[in-house]
């Protein structure tokens, strides 16, 4: 990590209207940000900037993408804290796509994990430079000065100088090699409750998202794609659409043969969105559906079950499962399944692109701006750096906006009509031709000894994997997609995992929590089933599994998992659960993913088929918390997303095409079903880890366990209560 004074280097020439003052660049080796461990040093390439202007305003530029997860508040708060900046003087700027920010792809709950420490050190360096500047003015030693809330104070005379007054002087000070960081007790913002920096604009309707971009001469486009993956256009009758007043053109979009590329389609361009949408309906398109027209998720799920209930391809083996099963008191088996999910962020896929002869500009909510530069660079035969990407706030993303096909399409249209174009996918297009969380099946068999110890564990999984985007010929998920099964902190000694056949017939893409959704469900539910089989209390039984894990490298994981689970259970009234009304029950589950630990205790009431979630106690252990409020909000949201997917949302395919079309038949959770959610944060000094995703996984298993406790009915298929479609 390098901290560099770039005050004189015009790094922010295009980004900031104000020049002068102190500008600090924070650069991480590119590999570290991308998650690749490497000793090789990179050239100076700052990933974030602090700009203290001469009037004292502090602007923090961050290249991570904001989609509601709160990163654009949490990371700047770490800077401001160490810098002793006044949070009310700090504003946060989203960095455009630019290699100067290093890899900006935002996913995997990784931003805080990788950037917390560097951001703090940069803030601390800035503070030391400001103190040095003040000492120079007063002609005293730095040791006689200290910084407090945007001011440097002379300890001898009690004179004060504001940060603004010092900015340009500080710009001439050397950057300290190892700036001293605050102790936990000194934190002003880290670990406190901070409001999202842009919430004022949100409640006034002033914050602009990708879909809100406006500019003179803007044209509007609507698009439809072949309903079956791999299909193509046979014929398009455009006449009726072109006759409509306000319609400019009908354009066929070619397929882009890159992993997240557009699958191709037909777009209508018009003077406004409404006209474009209406004209789209007047097109008469005949599609060549291709080989995936056989895809039927009902049958496919049944096939996956068959594929995991027989021998499959070995992924990982340790010890001897067969022997363990032979000498067991009993062997328990269960099969778990889950359907496809659509991210369905409230802001649909949208972008504005303006391709001109010698420039290409993009305005879009995106989790992966550099990929847009790369793909459009290839398409337009230009350098990626010639594609300017303005990253807007995303109105939700959940993994969908990592894949920027909606930008590729707008570029094709803009190039064709030679004007700036806003393309907005309809909700129906988003549901029908998206990237989906994998449909899946898992079969687990485990052996118990006389004391109720788990002695062996066979785990087969079958699901079309994200890898199929990169290699469509994959017949099954590659072994490394099952890595989280083998490395689960249960760490059973005699273990075998296998991957079953599961060819993809649609596009599979990261969805908030990714495979942890179904791994968490299978592990968390099966553990409860085993406990009942062994005649033990679930909490004690699961803790016993962790205790039996003697792998020294997993001791931290087992300790933290146990602690989170035990705390969630205690908070929920687990030990008094026998006193609950007969139709109520509590279920617990813990899941370790993305380096964080989340446990949930879910209390339900079951009346016939009706499941009412009353209360959720959620415990998070993600090391040092940056923003208590942001962390709490992420967990509340994870419960809602967990509840939607556990109970009701599922994307179904028939004859190769998605059956669902809008929120009436993709029923995400609504306000009346909101349970009371209590979030409990484990106090910790460990390095902070991310929270965008880890909260989703433990909900569904805790719910399944709760419903079983309340009613004796066991749900093993997600969603528990699918709509009939």
């Amino acid at each position, binding site marked *: 990590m390098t901290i560099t004074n770039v005050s004189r280097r015009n790094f922010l020439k295009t980004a900031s209207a104000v020049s002068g003052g102190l500008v600090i660049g924070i650069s991480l080796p590119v590999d570290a940000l991308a998650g690749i461990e490497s000793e090789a040093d990179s050239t100076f390439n700052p990933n974030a900037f602090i700009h203290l202007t001469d009037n004292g305003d502090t602007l923090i530029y961050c290249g991570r993408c904001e*989609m*509601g*997860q*709160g990163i654009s508040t949490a990371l700047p708060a770490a800077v401001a804290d160490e810098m002793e900046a006044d949070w009310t003087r700090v504003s946060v700027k989203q960095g455009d796509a630019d290699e100067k920010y290093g890899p900006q792809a935002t996913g995997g709950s990784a931003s805080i994990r990788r950037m917390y420490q560097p951001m703090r050190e940069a803030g601390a360096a800035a503070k030391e430079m400001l103190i040095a500047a003040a000492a120079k003015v007063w002609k005293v030693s730095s040791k006689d000065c200290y910084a407090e809330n945007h001011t440097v104070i002379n300890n001898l005379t009690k004179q004060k100088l504001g940060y603004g007054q010092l900015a340009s002087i500080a710009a001439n000070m050397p950057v300290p090699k190892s700036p001293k960081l605050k102790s936990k007790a000194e934190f002003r913002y880290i670990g406190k*409750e901070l*409001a*999202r920096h*842009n*919430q*004022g604009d*949100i*409640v*006034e*309707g*002033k*914050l*602009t*998202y990708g*879909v*809100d971009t*406006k500019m003179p001469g803007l044209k*509007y486009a609507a698009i439809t794609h072949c309903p079956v993956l791999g299909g193509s256009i046979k014929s398009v009758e455009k006449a009726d659409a072109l006759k409509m*007043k*306000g319609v400019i053109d009908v354009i066929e979009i070619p397929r882009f043969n890159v992993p997240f590329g557009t699958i191709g389609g037909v777009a209508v361009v018009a003077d*406004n*969105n*409404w*006209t474009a*949408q209406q004209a789209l309906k007047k097109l008469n398109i005949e599609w060549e559906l291709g080989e995936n027209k056989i895809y039927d998720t009902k049958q496919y799920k049944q096939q996956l079950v068959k594929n995991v209930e027989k021998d499959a391809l070995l992924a990982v083996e340790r010890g001897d499962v067969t022997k363990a099963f032979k000498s067991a008191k009993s062997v328990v088996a269960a099969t778990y399944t889950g359907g496809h999910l659509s991210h*369905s*962020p*409230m*802001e*649909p896929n949208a972008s504005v692109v303006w391709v001109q002869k010698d420039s290409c500009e993009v305005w879009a909510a995106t989790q992966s701006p550099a990929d847009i530069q790369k793909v459009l660079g290839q398409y337009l035969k230009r350098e990626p750096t010639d594609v300017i990407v303005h990253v807007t*706030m*995303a*109105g*939700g993303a*959940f993994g969908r906006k990592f894949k920027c096909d909606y930008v590729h399409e707008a570029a094709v249209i803009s190039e064709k009509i030679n004007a700036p174009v806003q393309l*907005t996918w*309809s*909700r129906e297009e988003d549901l029908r031709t998206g990237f989906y969380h994998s449909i899946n099946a898992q079969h687990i068999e485990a052996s118990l000894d006389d004391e109720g110890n788990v002695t062996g564990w066979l785990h087969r999984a079958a699901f079309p994997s994200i890898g199929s985007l990169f290699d469509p010929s994959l017949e099954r998920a590659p072994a490394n997609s099952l890595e989280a099964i083998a490395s689960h902190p249960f760490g059973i000694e005699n273990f075998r995992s296998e991957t079953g056949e599961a060819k993809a017939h649609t596009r599979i893409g990261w969805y908030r929590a990714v495979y942890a959704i179904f791994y968490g469900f299978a592990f968390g539910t099966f553990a409860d089933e085993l406990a009942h089989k062994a005649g033990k209390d679930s909490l004690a039984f699961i803790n016993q599994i962790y205790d039996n894990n003697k792998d020294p490298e997993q001791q931290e994981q087992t300790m933290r998992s146990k602690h989170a689970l035990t705390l969630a259970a205690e908070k929920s009234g687990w030990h008094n659960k026998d006193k609950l009304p007969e139709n109520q029950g509590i279920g617990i589950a813990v899941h370790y993913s993305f380096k964080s630990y989340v446990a949930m205790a879910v209390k339900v009431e079951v009346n016939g088929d009706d499941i009412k979630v009353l209360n959720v106690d959620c415990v998070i252990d993600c090391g040092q918390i940056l923003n208590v*409020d942001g962390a709490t*909000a992420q967990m*509340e*949201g994870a*419960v*809602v*997303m967990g509840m939607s997917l556990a109970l009701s949302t599922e994307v179904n395919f028939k004859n190769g095409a998605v059956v669902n079309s*809008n*929120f*009436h038949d993709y029923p*995400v*959770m*609504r*306000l*009346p079903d*909101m349970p*009371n*959610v209590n979030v409990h944060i484990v106090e910790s000094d460990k390095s902070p880890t991310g929270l965008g995703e880890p909260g989703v996984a433990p909900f569904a298993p805790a719910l399944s366990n709760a419903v079983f406790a309340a009613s004796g009915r066991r749900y093993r298929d997600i969603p528990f209560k699918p709509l009939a479609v």
Partner: protein
Amino acid sequence: MATSITINGKAHDIDVEGDMPLLWFLRDNLEFTGTKYGCGAGLCGACTVHVDGVATRSCITPVASLAGKSITTIEGLSQNGDHPLQKAWLNNKVPQCGYCQAGQIMNAASLLATNASPSSDEIDNAMQGNICRCGTYQRIKKAISEAAPELYKEV
């Protein structure tokens, strides 16, 4: 027949095809982008505005049907972003991505206009048409309860 509508106190000519939903007239013609597109079918509430004070889904309401009526959008809910609901939203740190929140606030404002102290069930009923995918429902509910007495104190 009147061919103009009043939006946030200002008259605008309806100079588009009459079947265009108000949502697109607001967003594309007037460039009031605070009102959001979410589903286009009246299923999610992101596009909620007030028509003569009543919460209405602008994505399914043809602009011609609103001739002579008075529309309020999130931009016109208060002078300085200081409607008790907006303040309660900030106080409870409701938004995550924030995309649905204009619709949520407009819907809640319509509820409070006719109900000074809605019960938990009444809030549930009134707000069930507004989806938040980030999952801010617990805070939305709390903010509405908190804003109700403030709103009526001011009147």
